């Protein structure tokens, strides 16, 4: 399959090489277990494979089959047809890292534009070409802040409102270092003030989420001020779509903005591939991990783009590189770039507000159901936590089984004492009817 070799080509090539049979090419290999039997099935033709995958796909029940209010870091947004129609172009997706700029200007300019869009969206000064996802972007932020302080400051403050997966990832990354993580165990009611209390002269970085995992939006100005007073850095992890309406972290002084780019036109695809956003201040550019595209000129005097500052990277610096990242999320950065270009300023604002209004309508309706309460008073974007009269898991289970609704995310999975809390996300994909249907089924819930 996928081999273009004819029998006579193969013959001729072996002859040119000077061996008789294919097997002769593997003479230098250990003979034990050479050409092992793998006990794998025979190959399938394309039509069989298509059928098989269709069969597997249909064993999933998706946001198309169910009414879903599940978010918790991944959102069911509309992916404009233009995005995928461009992503399907072979010139984009069958190229690799643009090491050879003369024949890679498509990728390079698209990434340069992506960097620009992220800078404008976040209010920062420089963006890299992407990280694997939001979680790893934060891990890289931790690493960067640690090195900005020449590894002298050991303390990293993680907000308890930072996505649990992201916090777990940071722990994995730093597990053998001398970095200490604090803050996670603050009460989840804790606001920026409590975080401020933790900042000291040993603090390298404070990581906040915006909106946070519970959907809450806080004003971080005072926190940033306090951190800067202590010469600590502040990283704000964003849902980039929310920045269509919210004050960008650059405006309140963030040093680093990370984000999960999935909400920018990338399908949910059961968890990936997504897009790790990473932006920072110009002064930290040389400390930032990841690829960077810069503008330059070609020999004909034309504007062009190249990978630049690669002395930060593993292929030049090896063990002294800032990070080990090599392949990144190029195609997803392209997707996000197309999405942002297409929506533009007004479209982003429009979709952000649509999410906002729908979520607030849902919250208001749910709050009116006896026994249900909105858990926090803070402003929120498109997601909010609800205190339920009985365990969220039971409610979610009931709604799924009987009403084909995924009611949200059971916060008890990650937070002790929040067993009765459901995290509900509402996007532009949820019609008013769907919201009303959720409210209706929640109202009918036996509150025993």
């Amino acid at each position, binding site marked *: 399959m996928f081999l273009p070799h004819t029998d006579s080509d193969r013959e001729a090539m072996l002859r040119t090489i000077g061996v008789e049979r294919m097997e002769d090419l593997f003479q230098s290999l250990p003979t034990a277990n050479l050409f092992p039997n793998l006990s794998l099935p025979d190959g399938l033709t394309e039509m069989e494979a298509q059928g098989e995958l*269709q069969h597997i796909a249909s064993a999933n029940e998706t946001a198309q089959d169910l009414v879903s209010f599940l978010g918790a870091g991944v959102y069911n947004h509309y992916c404009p047809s233009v995005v995928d129609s461009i992503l399907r172009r072979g010139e984009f997706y069958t190229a690799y890292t643009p090491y050879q700029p003369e024949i890679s200007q498509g990728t390079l300019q698209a990434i340069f534009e992506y*960097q620009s869009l992220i800078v404008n969206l976040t209010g920062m000064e420089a963006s890299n070409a992407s990280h694997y996802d939001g979680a790893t972007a934060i891990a890289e932020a931790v690493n960067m802040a640690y090195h900005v302080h020449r590894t002298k400051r050991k303390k990293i403050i993680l907000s308890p409102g930072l996505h649990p997966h992201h916090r777990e*990832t940071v722990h994995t990354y730093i597990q053998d270092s001398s970095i200490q993580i604090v803050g996670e165990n603050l009460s989840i009611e804790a606001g920026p003030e409590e975080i401020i209390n933790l900042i000291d002269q040993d603090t390298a970085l404070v990581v906040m989420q915006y909106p946070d995992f519970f959907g809450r939006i806080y004003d971080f100005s005072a926190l940033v001020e306090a951190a800067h007073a202590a010469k600590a850095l502040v990283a704000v992890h964003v849902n980039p779509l929310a920045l269509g309406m919210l004050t960008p972290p650059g405006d309140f002084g963030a040093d680093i903005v990370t984000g999960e780019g999935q909400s920018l036109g990338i399908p949910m695809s059961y968890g990936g591939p997504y897009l790790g956003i990473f932006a920072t201040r110009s002064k930290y550019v040389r400390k930032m991990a990841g690829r960077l595209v810069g*503008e330059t000129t*070609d020999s004909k005097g034309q504007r062009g783009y190249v990978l630049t500052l690669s002395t930060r990277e593993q292929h030049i610096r090896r063990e002294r590189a800032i990070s080990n990242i090599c392949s990144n*999320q190029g195609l997803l950065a392209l997707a996000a770039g197309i999405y942002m270009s297409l929506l533009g300023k007004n479209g982003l604002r429009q979709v952000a507000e649509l999410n906002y209004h*729908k979520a607030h309508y849902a919250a208001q309706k749910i709050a009116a159901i006896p026994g249900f309460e909105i858990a926090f008073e803070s402003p929120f974007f498109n997601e909010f936590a609800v205190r339920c009269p009985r365990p969220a898991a039971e409610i979610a289970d009931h709604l799924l089984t009987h009403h084909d609704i995924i009611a949200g995310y059971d916060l008890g999975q990650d937070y002790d004492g929040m067993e009765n809390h459901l995290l509900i996300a509402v996007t532009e994909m949820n019609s008013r009817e769907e*919201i009303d249907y959720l409210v209706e089924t929640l109202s009918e819930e036996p509150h025993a």
Partner: protein
Amino acid sequence: MPEPTIYDISSPGRQGMYYPDPDVPLASLPDSLIRKDFPFPEISEIDVVRHYTRLSQLNHGVDTGFYPLGSCTMKYNPKINEETARMPGFTQLHPLQPFETAQGALGLMYETQEWLKAISGFDAVTLQPAAGAHGEMTGVLIMKAYHRSRGDNKRIKMLLPDSAHGTNPASSAMTGLKSVQILSDERGNVDLAALRAECDDTLAGLMITNPNTLGLFDENLEEVVKIVHDAGGLVYGDGANLNAIMGISRPADSGIDVMHFNLHKTFSTPHGGGGPGSGPVGVTAELSQFLPSPIVDIIEDADDDGAPLYGLVTPENTIGRVKSFHGHFGILVRAFTYMIMLGEKGLRQASEHAVLNANYLQALLRDTYKIPHDRICMHEFVMEGHWEDAPGIHALDISKRLMDFGFHPPTNYFPLIVPEALMIEPTETENKETLDAFVDALIQIADEAHNNPEILQNAPHNTLFGRMDEVQAARNLVLCCWLPEDYEESAPQPLILD
């Protein structure tokens, strides 16, 4: 004609995508949290499409021509992969859905683990890592967790052959280990004496790429492994070069303890202009307890007429999660599609023909270019891109000149142990005519290098863009563009749809 940027073509009030007016009552906006200005492009749909369509045409991709970028396995990316990965049953699935509603996806992941295990010989596989380098870090953390679990805390040293890819030392360093370089011997193998000299009780392990980055199968692999194991170390395999040995030799059979796969190389998933990749990691039974969480397992056996129930489980002594959710699922779908289409025989044939193609090129080029380790290679080989009697010519000039013939250049200046390296990996999906044309071009270029060096030094000539000034880019950093100063911002309210 260079393409203007999207900032250049922005105009106030344009919009390429609209949303319906809210079908719910409006909530009041928290004024103090609302952004005040928003300097962002505004473009109509047609202009977005034209912009990116034209940009795409400035790229060389596998779909437009030969791409023998060594170490990257730029094989054909089957179109069916793009179809299956886009099935709504996959794309519309939320990673945190109750597992009962995601049995198709979990089953596919389970099967992918099984296939990778069978191909590599490992006992357990995680699909979570996002790319090769991410897999490396995961693997190294597993190695460290292993030593730690044995109370063996002094093992702080990772050995790396001088031919190793840059990600290997970088990944190792990210976990806090100390990197120590091991020289290669004349035949391109790990120098056994040098290796032995470093094998003491501070040894965490060795990261080895096999076939190595010279495209050579280490002739002493078993001995290398034994030396490391004897010293209490573990052997990490960089699986970037698995494309040479599928169905031919299993890394685990050679004693390798942990290895990452590059699905975006060996398993035909597209490179996406830089990514996404996918870097699953395979380990021996002993190490499986340390795998990152979660992995997929059968949590209820199949009954008579049903499929088993799949679920996500956490390995006992997991190193933790290395990213959010379960890995690059969309890439797994592509790789799975590819594997089931090839089947056992097809996988072996793919590797055989990858090796055939590389040796064929090597045979035709060895009289013209210096091949420092000239023996039967695996799926790639490395030659020198310079000649003593053409002192002004460097590997880069040859690369740029190749563009004039419609070819993507080989990898340049890697591995570091070959001066002016040109690392050529044709992959198995290229036909003989293409390989012959590539050889003809390289032979003509060698001739030009001696008789008309300027033509190389000024190359490329036939491309839309001439040589790029990389020094200028680094000196005079311009990392993003902006709307013009005098750009009149459009009013920030949503447009009325009419």
